[in-house]
């Protein structure tokens, strides 16, 4: 497994120019998560109206994998229903353990190489865990 398989161009691009990297002014849901082994910190803000994710932003710091994954996730779920967003997170996590996704994962598919680096899976799923936690709040 070479480094280029892990750090694909798409990942480097999201890491260098993250999308939706901002705090929302009026989030309806906010979740902060820590990755205690790495010291990564992520805050995910969601604005949910009528069951739709109308806006999403993230802040924090972490490795290129966790930041790129957060950037890709926010792009993928904006404008989707909360059910679709949760399904995406679930399919993405299964995808990292080798299960093909029935839905289009978009740029997130570039993270496939992470499955070969077990210690980095928690980096790639930090934002997805935050999303699941946020959407399970009332």
């Amino acid at each position, binding site marked *: 497994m070479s*480094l280029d398989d892990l750090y694909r161009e798409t990942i480097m691009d999201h890491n260098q120019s993250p999308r939706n990297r901002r705090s929302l002014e009026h989030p309806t849901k906010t979740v902060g998560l820590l990755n205690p082994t*790495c*010291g*990564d*910190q992520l805050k995910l803000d969601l604005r949910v109206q009528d069951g739709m994710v109308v806006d999403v932003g993230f802040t924090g*710091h972490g*490795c*290129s*994998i966790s930041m790129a994954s957060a950037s890709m996730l926010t792009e993928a779920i904006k404008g989707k229903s909360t059910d679709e967003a949760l399904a995406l997170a679930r399919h993405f996590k299964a995808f990292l353990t080798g299960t093909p996704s029935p839905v289009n994962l978009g740029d997130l598919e570039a993270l496939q190489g992470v499955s070969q680096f077990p210690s980095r899976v928690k980096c790639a799923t930090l934002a997805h865990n935050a999303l699941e936690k946020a959407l399970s709040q009332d």
Partner: protein
Amino acid sequence: MIEPLVDVSRDFPIFNRRINGYPLVYLDSAATSHKPEPVLAAMDQFYRHSNANVLRSVHTLAEEATTAYARARETVSTFIAATDPKEVIFTRGTTESLNLVARSFGDQFLRAGDEIVLSPMEHHSNLVPWQQVAKRTGAVLRYIDLADDGTISIDAVRRVISPKTRIAALSKISNVLGSVNPIVEVADLVHQVGGVMVVDGAQSVPHEPTDVMAMNADFLAFSGHKMCGPTGIGVLWGRAEWLAQMEPIAFGGEMISYVDREMATWAEVPEKFEGGTPNIAGAIGLAAAIDYLTAIGMDKICHHSQALGEHAFDALREISGVSVYGPRRPHAAAVAFTIDGIHPHDIAQVFDSKAIAIRAGHHCAQPLMQWLGVGSTARASFYFYNSSNDIDRLLDAILETKRFFQR
């Protein structure tokens, strides 16, 4: 050129491995050290030849196991210049040793308003147990201010020591900054106000000669696995007068004297603190490790560790975009660094592709990361099996990491 102090490929089977096609460069000994053949052989011999439980049975195997376990305690005692092997308590490691002091000595002797002096560079295992005992007793934590390079000055210690100080708990060597703390002077100040000095020796005992009496300590905690011994064995050394007064915290087999339906009395020190079947093979492995280190010479190891630490510190500081933490001189065998714009985890990943093992993260020292103003760092750490060639590989890997992420 700084050479290894031993024939590495003869003594350490793990260094004959190749990882990702490259020979292993192991720069993570502050996390755990590798195990030389004599340690592996001693533990293997025990299990194959003498395996039995200690203290209780009279059969030949039990006699051999008990003798070997007692001899291991004597070996440790001599190694740290303790006055009596009974002052050596075997634990699972530094964490359990420090928890034992906090739970037993702390709960027994701390009152509301008493003060515990710590530094912000402490490993969580010399910090969280004190937070917890403070919660239970109403004692207060006082933190020594660090100088800009992370060192501790005696003036800064004086500012936090008061007549209320009951305990000062300090690492001898920082696992992140590579700084060497003035234990003897701090212990003097603490003793003047009637307090006790607890020393976290996890990073110092493997790397330098240790003399608990000269150190002026009341308690010293360290782990076997960072000094070529196996995991799961460590030591709490304590002054006999304190250990005699302290209550045990784990109750059960082999730690009692008399038991009836309602009550029990305790065995003598050290058995009082070693409830249950101890890690016999671990203690034997630790003793073999001590024999191995002693044969090399702790003075030589100390000189070698510091030479590598200081060489790495200087070399890393020369690279643009790299920040190095801790003092320039003296600098022990752990060197923490960051590269602008590249997360430490990504650094460690690129290094691994070249078979260079470093640690990335907060190093179980989150308050220190907060003080440094970073989320995490990379850390290279050295032992007597490393050479300056390993540091050359480290420097090449840093340049390659910068190229990779700045493409």
